[in-house]
């Protein structure tokens, strides 16, 4: 199909569709909180205080150590705290309170420098490889074929624009881990007709793909290998 055909074809859609989309949306009437307003504000204050406390590494480790756990290899799952925005369907949930814990003992983390000449390069995204310390000194080529690694793409929320096709993720700043900025991840997504939740691990041949969030773009290297028995 020649370039621009789709764009022009969308331009020629049934005018009723355009009119419908142009009509002012009907918004649900605001409910008066009345006496509940104080309770809502108090709850917001409590959650803010808890959120600030979570910035403390020890507090976070204690909480996440309880939340994050591994099941058996066949059905490994990372558990995340999930809050849904009011009234939103489950497949449009923003996931909060998700964080990486500390690096497991015996593992190291390194930045993987991006190539500014490659399409999709975005200096705001950091790529970090978390791997067993014994792999130190291996070349990139050697590392691409060994197991027990996690490659994490991390960035700051609000700085990244969506839809560039570079696989950027909508993440939120959370903490520092071993000198790196570490972030929460959110997004539930569908890929090839299947629905996946953040934290699901899919087995594909000998590669294990972890959905740590975001929308997979075609051609983007989304394969992440995960260490068996890794604890956070």
């Amino acid at each position, binding site marked *: 199909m020649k370039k621009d055909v789709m764009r022009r074809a969308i331009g020629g859609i049934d005018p009723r569709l*355009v009119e419908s989309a142009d009509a002012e*949306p009907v918004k649900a009437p605001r409910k008066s909180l009345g006496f509940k307003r104080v309770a809502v504000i108090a709850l917001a204050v409590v959650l803010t205080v808890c959120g600030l406390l979570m910035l403390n590494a020890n507090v976070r480790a204690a909480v996440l150590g309880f939340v994050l756990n591994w099941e058996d290899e066949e059905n490994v799952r990372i558990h995340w705290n999930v809050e849904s925005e009011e009234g939103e369907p489950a497949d449009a949930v923003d996931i909060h309170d998700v964080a990486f814990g500390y690096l497991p003992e015996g593992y190291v983390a390194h930045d993987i420098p991006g190539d500014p000449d490659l399409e999709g390069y975005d200096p705001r995204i950091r790529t970090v490889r978390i791997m067993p310390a014994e792999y130190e000194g291996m070349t990139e080529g050697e590392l691409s074929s060994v197991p027990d690694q996690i490659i994490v793409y991390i960035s700051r929320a609000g700085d990244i624009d969506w839809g560039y096709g570079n696989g950027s993720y909508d993440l939120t700043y959370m903490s520092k881990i071993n000198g790196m900025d570490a972030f929460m991840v959110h997004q539930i997504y569908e890929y090839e007709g299947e629905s996946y939740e953040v934290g699901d691990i899919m087995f594909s041949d000998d590669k294990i793909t972890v959905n740590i969030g975001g929308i997979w773009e075609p051609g983007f290297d989304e394969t992440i290998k995960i260490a068996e028995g890794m604890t956070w």
Partner: protein
Amino acid sequence: MDDHLIVQMFRDRDEDALAAAKEKYEKYLTYIANNVLHDRGESEECVSDALLAAWESIPPQNPDNLKTYLGKLTREIAISRWRKNTSGKRIRSDLVRSLDEIEEIVSGGDPDSEFEEAELSREISRFLFSVDEDKRNVFIRRYWFYDPVKNICRRYGFGKSKVLMMLKRTRDDLARYLKERGYLK
């Protein structure tokens, strides 16, 4: 003034038709043009060009829906003007993203296939009529009106993640729909 009356004035070559159309739809058309051009002056010129294009095309055109007809003309003229303004420049903008997203629908399709544009428009319309209302409206606001995502969020009270997810899914569903009907190979 009723749209049918304005269209009749165009057909009768009554120049008051231009003033009538402008009075009724200038704000609407400027909004569409500005989503593309982000420049008030350019947008106003674009609207003038669109009204002139309507004058030159009616007759033989006899639009049932004048508002959408003028909007479509404005849309095309704005894109042409934008392309001319940005030719040779590497631009990263919301409009570029929007156009890239549209291209993504046909990525991998047979570039030699010739389809009548009107036929494709009809198929896309059929698809959109079959889709959930929210998804449909978000899709049209994004790819017909070129609304920035944040404007769509504000209009419908949706979060950004939700809007992006809706757009992605609708694009994928449309691609699948067109593939099943032989428009994409």
